[in-house]
């Protein structure tokens, strides 16, 4: 491990950034040492990504300075940052959707080396090398726009790692990954760190953060509130530093009372290549967790329930009435809502306002006689949900693109709560959401369930499932392999069955 008193490779001092009245960064300073992993922690919207973008030259600070090797950089640009050996895995991946995985991985390096001609065939070996090093099974020739979120994330990771970085920023690099990929990524991070690379790691999975980091800097509302040695922190004390309060994550589930007729019945659902013989039911007010490794088929199961995929056989009934397989409209009119995994492209209209997004799914029910929208009712719905979900934004007219991850997710939730669904299916609802917000989102779901809504939640976050679910189902290779009922729910056992 590197010496503690080594000179910092990168230092920022008194960085200020204001976005139209919102102070994203308020005089933040931080220094990075070679061979150390520096964790940047903070709630959603606390300014972590903004700080990274300022250092990499994508955003321009309103005040403050950036020093590389002790030398002040005036006017940082992405080009200069790259030349200084800064690599970034951006939170939004920043990939070219119309290029292949290999091209995405290699292109930036090719441009950086000022090659005027780009050779498609020659891009493969370089890409293959990094994919192998990470032990991944990425299809190098697939178009990025057709990839799953997890594969896109892996592509972004490979792109940053393929070049020799001196300073590596990883802005929530593991949101879509499961245990095994995360483990391999961390293996590589340790190798890089031993080579003397300075690494900045951002994640809302706090146990991950503590596992990998040496130093910690905590931001709150754009201000630096704590910094120090990672060994001095526990998940709990880090949470307190981030949120300013204690977040209670103990298990708290609604009492279902006596089991009546099920709200949702899934019977012998089959889709070759994705899942086989899936049967389960859901009671009103119940919160059902579904988990499993990446590629286990858990996502496909709920996509079939929402009508995105058409199962080959089997039936789904809501309150006894069968759904038309493979029809989104049929699922929605039966009262099913779906918060998708890929919230940026599937869940949100990024350029549209928060208000437009909130009522996007319930336009018909806000119209008098299905023809004319009632402005008053729309305004009511929007302001109710905006306040109830505590969306942090200057106003409901702000475009969703300007929101931080956790707030954007609340908008997707608001859109579906506005439809007053009987069943809400959520695919990774708290991915990229900070501890405090996560707890608030779970509370919102608990409250909605208490009013009789059935909730199905897919998640990798086992402790989260434990804290909220009445039951947890585990999917392995397309089949339901285990069911944990109220008393048996326990993180340790769930993890064991998942990985088995």
């Amino acid at each position, binding site marked *: 491990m590197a010496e503690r008193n080594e000179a910092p490779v990168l230092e920022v001092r008194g960085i200020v950034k204001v976005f139209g009245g919102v102070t994203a960064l308020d005089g933040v300073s931080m220094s990075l040492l070679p061979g150390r992993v520096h964790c940047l922690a903070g709630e959603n919207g606390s300014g972590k990504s903004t700080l990274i973008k300022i250092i990499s030259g994508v955003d*321009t600070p309103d005040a403050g300075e950036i020093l590389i090797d002790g030398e002040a950089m005036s006017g940082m640009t992405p080009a200069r940052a790259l030349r200084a050996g800064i690599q970034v895995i951006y939170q939004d991946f920043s990939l*070219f959707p119309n290029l292949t995985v290999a091209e995405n991985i290699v292109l930036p390096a090719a441009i950086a080396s000022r090659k005027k001609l780009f050779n498609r065939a020659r891009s493969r070996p370089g890409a293959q090398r990094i994919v192998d090093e990470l032990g991944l099974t990425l299809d190098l020739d697939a178009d990025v726009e057709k990839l799953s979120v997890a594969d896109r994330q892996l592509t972004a990771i490979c792109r940053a790692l393929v070049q020799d970085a001196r300073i590596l920023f990883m802005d929530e690099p593991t949101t879509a990954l499961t245990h095994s990929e995360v483990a391999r990524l961390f293996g590589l991070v340790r190798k890089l760190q031993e080579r003397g690379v300075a690494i900045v790691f951002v994640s809302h999975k706090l146990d991950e953060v503590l596992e990998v980091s040496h130093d910690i800097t905590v931001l709150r509302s754009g201000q630096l509130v704590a910094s120090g040695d990672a060994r001095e922190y526990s998940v709990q004390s880090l949470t307190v530093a981030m949120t*300013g309060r204690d977040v209670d994550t103990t298990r708290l589930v609604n009492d279902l009372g006596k089991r009546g007729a099920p709200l949702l019945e899934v019977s012998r659902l089959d889709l070759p290549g994705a899942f086989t013989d899936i049967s389960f039911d859901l009671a009103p007010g119940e919160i059902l967790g579904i988990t499993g490794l990446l590629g286990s088929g858990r996502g496909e199961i709920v996509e079939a329930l929402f009508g995105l995929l058409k199962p080959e056989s089997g039936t789904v009934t809501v309150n006894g009435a069968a759904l038309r397989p493979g029809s989104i409209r049929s699922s929605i009119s039966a009262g099913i809502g779906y918060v998708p995994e890929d919230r940026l492209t599937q869940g949100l209209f990024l350029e549209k306002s928060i208000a437009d997004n909130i009522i996007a799914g319930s336009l018909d029910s806000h119209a008098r006689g299905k023809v004319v929208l009632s402005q008053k009712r729309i305004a009511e719905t929007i302001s109710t949900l905006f306040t109830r979900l505590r969306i942090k934004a200057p106003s409901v007219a702000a475009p969703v693109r300007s929101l931080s991850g956790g707030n954007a997710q609340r908008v997707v939730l608001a859109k579906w709560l506005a439809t007053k669904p009987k069943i809400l299916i959520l695919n990774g609802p708290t991915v990229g959401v900070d501890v405090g917000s996560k707890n608030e989102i779970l509370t919102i779901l608990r409250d909605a369930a208490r009013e009789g809504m059935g909730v199905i939640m897919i998640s990798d976050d086992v402790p989260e499932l434990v804290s909220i679910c009445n039951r947890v189902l585990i999917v392995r290779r397309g089949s339901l392999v285990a069911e944990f009922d109220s008393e048996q729910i326990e993180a340790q056992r769930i993890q064991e069955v998942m990985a088995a």
Partner: protein
Amino acid sequence: MPIRTHQSAAGQVNSRIDNTVRTWISHIHVDRGIGRMLVLLVIAFALFAVLNPRVFMNPLNLQNIMVSAPEVGILAIAMTLAMLTGGIDLSLVSIANLTAITISTMYTGLVGSDPALAESLGGVIVLVGIAVGVLAGLINAFLISTVGITPILATLATMQIFNGIAIVWTGGKTLYGAPQALSAVGKSTVAGVPVLFLLFLVVAIVIGLLVNRTPFGRKTQLQGANPTAARFSGIRSASVLYGTYLTTGLLGGLAGVLFVTRNPTASADYGTSYVLLVIVIAVLGGTNPMGGFATVTGVVLATLVLQVVQSGFNAIRLSSYEYSIAQGVILIGVMVFDQLRFRRRTRYVASTQTRNIASMSNVGEDADETPDTAGADSVETK
């Protein structure tokens, strides 16, 4: 170590008031597309009023502007609708001509045998003409939604087909004759304002309400903004696309009725310059060609701007060629203005990748872009 305390109750009230104010301000932002057209309209008007007040300010000339604006304006509104979904409708003018030809043919056919009957059936003839427009729209909708052809190619093809039909039908000649009631309406005014212009305003208001105040209109905007998210929100693209192209067909037909109302003639090659003109107007009026954003008011104003410029060029004896140069210059001028403002305001909104890669081609050269130092940027993407 500064630690922020939680917002006090008073702070929350304050922030709520702040919220309302901001909402208002952002509405003003949205309306800037309208604002710049208003400014242009006033400037153009004042300019020609000064350059040649005798001709330009002549009541007859002003009436003329108001009589010729509606047909272009209605086509531009139709184009705006198509662009709102992220599409385009190149066949609009040929649809209008088909409608005009249908009306003229039916009328002259009837007049030959029974003039009184022809006049009394005027309303029916007009409705049949409009129905032809709707039918043409249905064909577009079928090709775009059901078959799945890209709008620009589908409507390029139907433009050729409708135009071909019109030429074969008329033998390439100009048809004369249209219900006299139409010409009467075309000449009438209410308080000095031509009825045609009022009709244009009514159409604009109806379409404006359709876009903003009905589920259909909102869905159209959302579909244009992000088709994937629209699908995940339960919006059926088929109903949006059919609704849109049926409406553009209807408006195309209506424009055709205006053609024969202004002049009781019809031909296959009337208004060929309109095809691109209405795209220019739609974009000037603030329509995003990528879909998702448009204001009908902006489009109405843009129509008037171009009509005023055209009529003003007549007044100061510039030719239609110089007018077309002016169109291009105005379009570029507005786009440049937009770009400058957009760059200033939304550097940080654009996806990080584009800028990253764009500036990476400078690596190694010393052509570093000077970073912009604009401070307080506003959150706005339009």
